[in-house]
Structure formats: structure tokens, C-alpha cells
């Protein structure tokens, strides 16, 4: 049985762990609100852009002359999996869920005889994927030097992806991130981003819209922007999900620490009492012997 001193030490160490998890939980709760607000305020732009893309899509037909970003390269041999993770841990299974979804997809594609490459965003997914697919990491995008990945990062990622795409490094790109449903539920999501899935055609009013320049040219200009917006949206969802997952995980951890402290305290009190009892018996026995 552990000595009194040892027990006391353990209780104290669990207590300080609890303090950390509690603090992290509160930080996550505060950040979650901010991340949700950011996701909220990004919606108008995304919605408008989708609308515009929709009304453009209803005007033109996808042909060989369409921009490559929309029509594809004509083959689908090389798949690029863009995996967006967080930079920080302490958020439960958040990162491993995304990595797991990407891994399943990679295996599936490989079974179909396709080549799979990875483009990693964020620090946390690197180790796991690098271990399994050591030669297939095309690039790792670093977000550790910015506090919250924002539109500038999305822009840089999208530009790099487009450059790689135009250089013929891959044919199809999938984006993996975690969709924010609620603080308790985050869904790892797989979304095809390149070629851009043809937007749903929207029939807008009867008024004839003038285009300047031509529809095709506008579409070509808008496609990269659409891609950026998609990535930006994914980064925001991911940020909100991370905080949500972190909050839930830390809540659990705090509760577990509480349980452990209780158990250890009971054990501590029992041993203390046992020690006192033995001491008393010794004294009494000693007194009687006199």
C-alpha cells in the first residue's frame, strides 16, 4: 500500500492536472464562440458566390474548352488528398478522426489502382500520415505561425493547389476536414474540390443578365475564387470543430480528474486512520505492559 506521503503527492498532481484541463476547457468555450461567429460571417460571401456560380453554370455547358478547373484533366489517375488538421492537441479524437477518414479514402483509391498523394495542412496530422505513407506527402502547409487560419492562408493553399494542378501533378483533389455540427458532434468530411464540382444551376428571374466580359471568362476568373472560398470555409469549420472537440474532451478530463481525486482522498483518509489506530494500539499495549 502506498504511503501517506505518496498518496498526498498523487492527489496534488491530479489536482494540478485538473486545473489545466479546466482552464483549457474554458479557453475552448470562449474560442468556440469566436470561431462560430467567424464561420457565421463568412456565410454571405460563400452564399453569394455559389449563387453567381449557379447562374453562370446554367448559361454554359461544360465542354473540352471549359477551364480545366471545371472540366478536369481528362484522367483520374493521381488523387491528391488535402488533409486539414489543427496545430494544437488536447482536443480528443478530432485530429485522428480526420486522419482516419483520409486513410480510409487513400486505401480505397489505392485498391482501385490510383496514385494517392497528400497535402497536409496543420501540424497534428503529419506524424500519423507520414508514418503510413512516407513517400506520398506532396507538401506540408504550415499554419503554426498564425493564430487563426484565415482567408490569407486559404488563398495561399488554393494558389498552391492550382499551381500544382496546372503543372499536372494531380488530377483530382479531395479536401478532408471536420464539419461543425455542434460542440458535441463534429463530422469528418470528404469533399471533392478539384475539378470543381459543377455548381447547381439556378434559374434566376426572367430578366436577361448582361455579362462583361463573356460568361466563359467570368467563370474562369471565378473558379479559383470559388476554390479559395471552399478552402476558407473548410478552415473555419475546422477551427470551430477543433474548439468544440477540445471543449468536450477537456470537460471529460476534468470530470475524470475529479473522480480520481475523490477515490485517492478516500484511500488517503483510510490509511491515515489505519495508521492512527495502529499507533493507539501500540500505546495502549505499552501502557498495559507496565
Amino acid at each position, binding site marked *: 500500500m502506498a504511503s501517506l506521503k505518496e498518496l498526498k503527492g498523487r492527489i496534488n498532481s491530479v489536482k494540478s492536472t485538473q486545473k489545466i484541463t479546466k482552464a483549457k476547457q474554458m479557453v475552448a468555450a470562449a474560442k468556440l464562440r469566436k470561431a462560430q461567429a467567424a464561420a457565421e460571417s463568412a456565410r454571405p460571401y460563400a452564399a453569394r458566390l455559389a449563387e453567381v456560380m449557379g447562374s453562370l453554370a446554367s448559361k454554359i455547358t461544360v465542354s473540352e474548352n471549359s477551364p480545366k478547373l471545371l472540366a478536369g484533366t481528362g484522367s483520374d489517375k493521381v488523387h491528391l488528398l488535402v488533409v486539414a488538421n489543427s496545430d494544437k492537441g488536447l482536443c480528443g479524437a478530432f485530429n485522428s478522426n480526420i486522419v482516419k477518414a483520409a486513410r480510409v479514402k487513400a486505401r480505397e483509391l489505392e485498391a482501385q489502382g490510383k496514385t494517392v498523394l497528400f497535402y497536409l495542412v496543420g501540424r497534428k496530422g503529419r506524424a500519423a500520415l507520414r508514418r503510413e505513407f512516407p513517400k506520398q506527402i506532396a507538401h506540408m502547409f504550415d499554419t503554426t505561425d498564425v493564430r487563426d487560419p484565415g482567408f490569407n492562408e486559404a488563398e495561399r493553399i488554393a494558389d498552391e493547389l492550382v499551381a500544382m494542378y496546372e503543372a499536372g501533378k494531380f488530377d483530382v483533389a479531395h479536401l478532408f476536414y471536420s464539419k461543425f455540427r455542434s460542440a458535441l458532434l463534429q463530422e469528418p468530411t470528404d469533399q471533392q474540390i478539384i475539378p470543381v464540382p459543377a455548381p447547381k444551376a439556378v434559374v434566376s428571374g426572367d430578366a436577361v443578365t448582361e455579362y462583361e466580359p463573356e460568361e466563359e471568362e467570368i467563370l474562369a476568373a471565378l473558379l479559383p475564387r470559388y476554390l479559395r472560398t471552399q478552402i*476558407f470555409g473548410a478552415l473555419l469549420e475546422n477551427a470551430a470543430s477543433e474548439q468544440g472537440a477540445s471543449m468536450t474532451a477537456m470537460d471529460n478530463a476534468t470530470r475524470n480528474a475529479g473522480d480520481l481525486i475523490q477515490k485517492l482522498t478516500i484511500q488517503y483518509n483510510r490509511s491515515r486512520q489505519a495508521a492512527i489506530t495502529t499507533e493507539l494500539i501500540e500505546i495502549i499495549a505499552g501502557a498495559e505492559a507496565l
Partner: protein
Amino acid sequence: MALHFELVTPAKLVRSESVHMVVVPGTEGEFGVLEGHAPFMSTVADGAIKVYKTESGMPEEIRITGGFAEVGEKGLTVLAEHVEG
């Protein structure tokens, strides 16, 4: 006579207000939008859009990059990737 003008960036809705006229530097030339403009879409060159709150007042300039303008029944919507000031 008022035109509903919205300026939206990925980060937020920058403007949503009623104005008299907005002059937008389209890639194929500047164009002014008043109320009742025909439906119209154009890409926007990097530069300043001029917002005339009233008919006689001085315009307010907003510098944008990566823009796209859409005129519809609801008014003018400018989507911009970056907005300064």
C-alpha cells in the same frame, strides 16, 4: 432614388446600405450603377470603388482587390477578396 449596395468579403459583410450611386472599376471599363440598373455581372479590376451617398456629396472611396460585381433586382453586390479601410 436609392440603390441598395452590399460589399461582401470572405471574412464579413462590410457594407449593406442605401446609396445614390456606386462607380465600379470593371475590367472592361468603369461603370456607374444607379437604381433600376439592368441585371449585369462583371469582374472588377483591382482599384477603388466610389460610393456616392447623395447626389451632390463627395464620393467615398473603398479600395478592393479580387472583386466581382453583380447587379440584380436586389441592387448591387460587390464580392471582394480584400478590402482596405
